């Protein structure tokens, strides 16, 4: 996709601490055909995209395929980004739609990864907590699992999640509410003593 190069008049923020501004600058440059900027954008988002997608399919090849489909759309439509949301929100919205399409077309791919933590941490409590969380998330319907992931792994706001999943803000709140209720029941270990106390008070 050849594009005309234009002088870059945006301030250089690549070395700065503002990820949103840095993403935007990379995207704008990619829109002008700057491959190097696009490569940085790709590598910066690859891991988070791969992890987000791996929650919904155990097939590594599909994860890579969806990541590349997502970033292909990003490259193609970079000039159409209006700046209404953060670049990351826009990218994850595209990834979400690519994921949904893939899962619709290939339902067999929808089995999420159940791989245990790779044991890179010496903290046994942390490993145990990760395993509990994975099991808890697997018990959730896909929409609730995705909402949890977007909120607690990617740190997206309620409005951003609504934009990514193309639903109303109220729907996001409802999904999160039900997900938390269910996790409360399936992850008592995370609740600690307070949880036991609260459960007893509730019961």
């Amino acid at each position, binding site marked *: 996709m050849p594009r005309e190069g234009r002088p870059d008049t945006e301030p250089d923020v690549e070395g700065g601490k503002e990820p949103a501004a840095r993403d935007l600058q990379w995207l704008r440059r990619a829109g002008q055909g700057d491959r190097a900027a696009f490569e940085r954008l790709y590598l910066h988002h690859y891991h988070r995209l791969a992890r987000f997608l791996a929650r919904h399919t155990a097939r590594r090849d599909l994860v*890579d395929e969806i990541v590349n489909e997502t970033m292909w759309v990003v490259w193609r439509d970079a000039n159409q980004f209006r700046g209404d949301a953060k670049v990351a929100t826009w990218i994850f919205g595209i990834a979400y739609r690519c994921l949904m399409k893939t899962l619709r077309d290939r339902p067999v791919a929808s089995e999420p990864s159940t791989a245990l*933590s790779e044991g890179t941490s010496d903290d046994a409590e942390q490993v145990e907590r*990760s395993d509990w969380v994975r099991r808890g998330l697997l018990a959730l319907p896909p929409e609730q699992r995705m909402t949890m992931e977007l*909120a*607690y792994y990617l*740190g997206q706001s309620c409005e951003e999640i609504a934009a990514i999943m193309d639903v109303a803000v109220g729907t996001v709140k409802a999904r999160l509410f039900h997900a938390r209720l269910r996790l409360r029941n399936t992850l008592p270990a995370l609740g600690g003593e307070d949880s036991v106390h609260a459960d007893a008070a509730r019961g």
Partner: protein
Amino acid sequence: MPMRREDEAMNTSTLPHRQIWELIPWFVNGSAGTAERQTVEDHLRQCADCRDEYAFQSRLRAGIAEDGVDGDERQAQDGLRRLLARIDLESDTDRSDRTGARAPRRQHLLQRVLIAAVLVQGIGLAVLAPLLLQREDPRTEYRTLTSTPTQPSSAVIRLVPAPTLTLAELQAMLGAEDLRIVESNAGGSIYGLAFESGGAADATRTVERLRAYRGVLLAEPIGSAASR
């Protein structure tokens, strides 16, 4: 939502637990606004149940953040290489498609223009045809000098001069015979002549004299003169 009686009594002036419960995820993930943060913080200081929920959500967030399998750097580089190859490939295809598609597109445009032109002509004919059929324009009728004129002609002699007859010779001849030209065909090769005096002189004799002139191919009486 769990709620202790003492908390309930203490928080009658604060937001309901349900609202705090809804705000806690955004408080935990750092996306809550300043006012929302303040609201949650104020409530948590007073409500043990919501503090418990906050602690649970914080541990859940930590668990989610720690869990999951990131792709390694090699996978990222491999994926990027594949995508760039695709971009190159589709860029070439796009270029060739654009080149190849130009001619058919032009043909398609030409076809549409021609179809539009035919339609416009058809509509024009449909509108004008009845009008043209109803209209009787005498100017469009085909007439010859031998046909009976719609308006009565004053010509009594038809003259066809030879191409070699000069204008001066023609004028001299007409002057001598007291004639003038009152009609002509489109090419100026056949004339209808009438007597200058307007009277009905002897056209037959005049015709005979005209035939004797050099440069006259044809001279004959016409109209009422011919029937005499």
